[in-house]
């Protein structure tokens, strides 16, 4: 049996308040989940349930309090070198042009600029930004910046792609275009994807599997659904199919209660 690309084994994360060491907050507890090579897995859950925490653990940016992460069977220590991470907020270096941003990862990994440049240019063309290489991030629109980020991440050809609500800041049309683009690129390369979102529609439309997290604190998976919709999919069209509606209803039944719980907690805290 081949080891899964990414395996979380009883991961728990407890944060200690910096000002008051007695204050503890357990974001996630006992999270066990796997992403097989070439599989697209989404994690959905109410806001503040520790989805991003999980992703940071998977990237090796955050060390878990308990449990271990295994990457293709090997226990992860330090940064996850086989993973690419697409962040929720702006992550491009504002002092580099779009092209040089895409080149950054290749340069960091020791490629000569002369080798990195044609690769980066090819990736910019693939995300439909061929003519925008010399623009600085502030000269691009939000959707274009996201596409540069995508090219930046994928140019390194990572085996695992981690995505933290990458399209949440985009308008609905741009978002659907980007979702389709990501699906097309994924279908080409078949990488393992761990996709974090709070948007159930997005999760179902894109994934092979959807995992539902409970409301925080100490959130953990409470449901797992296999999405057996045919590929290739179009995220806009697929939402009208009966099977999609069925799945949506089934997952929402589980998620609904957690969302309400999370909302009630936020009200209490406020």
């Amino acid at each position: 049996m081949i080891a899964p690309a990414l395996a979380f084994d009883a991961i728990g994360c407890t944060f200690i308040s910096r000002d008051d060491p007695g204050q503890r907050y357990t974001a996630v507890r006992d999270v066990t989940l796997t992403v097989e090579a070439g599989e697209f897995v989404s994690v959905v859950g109410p806001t503040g349930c520790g989805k991003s925490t999980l992703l940071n653990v998977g990237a090796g940016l955050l060390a878990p309090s308990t449990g271990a992460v295994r990457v293709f069977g090997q226990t992860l220590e330090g940064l996850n070198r086989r993973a690419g991470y697409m962040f929720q907020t702006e992550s491009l270096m504002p002092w580099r042009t779009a092209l040089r941003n895409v080149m950054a990862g290749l340069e960091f990994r020791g490629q000569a600029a002369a080798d990195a440049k044609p690769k980066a240019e090819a990736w910019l063309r693939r995300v439909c930004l061929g003519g925008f290489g010399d623009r600085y991030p502030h000269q691009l629109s939000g959707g274009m910046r996201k596409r540069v980020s995508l090219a930046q991440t994928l140019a390194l050809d990572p085996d695992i792609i981690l995505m933290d609500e990458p399209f949440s800041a985009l308008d609905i049309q741009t978002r659907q275009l980007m979702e389709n683009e990501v699906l097309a690129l994924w279908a080409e390369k078949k990488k393992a994807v761990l996709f974090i979102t709070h948007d159930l529609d997005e999760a179902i439309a894109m994934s092979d599997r959807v995992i539902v997290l409970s409301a925080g604190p100490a959130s953990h998976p409470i449901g797992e659904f296999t999405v057996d919709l045919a590929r290739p999919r179009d995220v806009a069209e697929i939402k009208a199919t009966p099977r999609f509606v069925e799945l949506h209803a089934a997952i929402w039944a589980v998620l609904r209660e957690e969302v309400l719980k999370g909302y009630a907690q936020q009200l209490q805290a406020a």
Partner: protein
Amino acid sequence: MKNALQLRLWQLGLLGALGVFWYTMTTPGLLPNFMFENDRQAAFFFGEPLKVFGRIWAWFVRDADIYRHLAVTLVETLLAFGFGAVFGLAMGLWLALAPAASAILEPYVKALNSMPRIILAPIFSVWFGLGIGSKVALGVTLVFFIVFFNVYQGVKEVSPVVLANARMLGASKRQLLRHVYLPSATSWVFSSLHTSVGLAFVGAVVGEYLGSSQGVGYLILQAEGSFDINTVMAGILVLTGFALLLDAAVGRIEKRLMKWQPKSGETEKL
């Protein structure tokens, strides 16, 4: 366009009015005495514009002997800025990235910064003599803190997401310093460029004024010693014009280097 022209005309008009006011108030015998008992006294205290411009004409054209002094002042300014910026950059980066060192040195930095550093000039003339060295040293102490605080701030305010992204792209510690911290810090240095070049100039001129054998500050000092107010005024005007030129040059350099920074009001280019 018409507005800009009008603005210029008003500005020139104001300059002309000030000149005429100066001329009428100081020329002996032009107006009856109402302030001073002797009609030469106004000229003695405030100088006469025609003689002042005559002096400037002699410096630049007739005798052409000011260029040597201007060059000395310019060299002092540039050296003070260069050394101050490099030290400030190095110290700022070091203290921002080494919290322990920063915690230990914090009170000393505060004390040095709040000390009126102009008062170090006499010590510097003892240490470095009356040549260029003491002026550069004084300028460096002024420039250093401006650059230092800006770099410190710049490093502290590097977006954590940009940093995490660079790490995920494979940047080593040195690469982070070179490709993330340094560009971010230099942007802060450039935003303070006008202030720091101005202070380097102040350091040079004040240093010369306190004791020297060449430089524009020295010319002023000499003239003051013989109560030659016209030459003092001429020196002040030359310094002002020179400072304006320096500032314009800084503005052009800044524009070229800070191309990547969004300017307020600039529309997004698509």
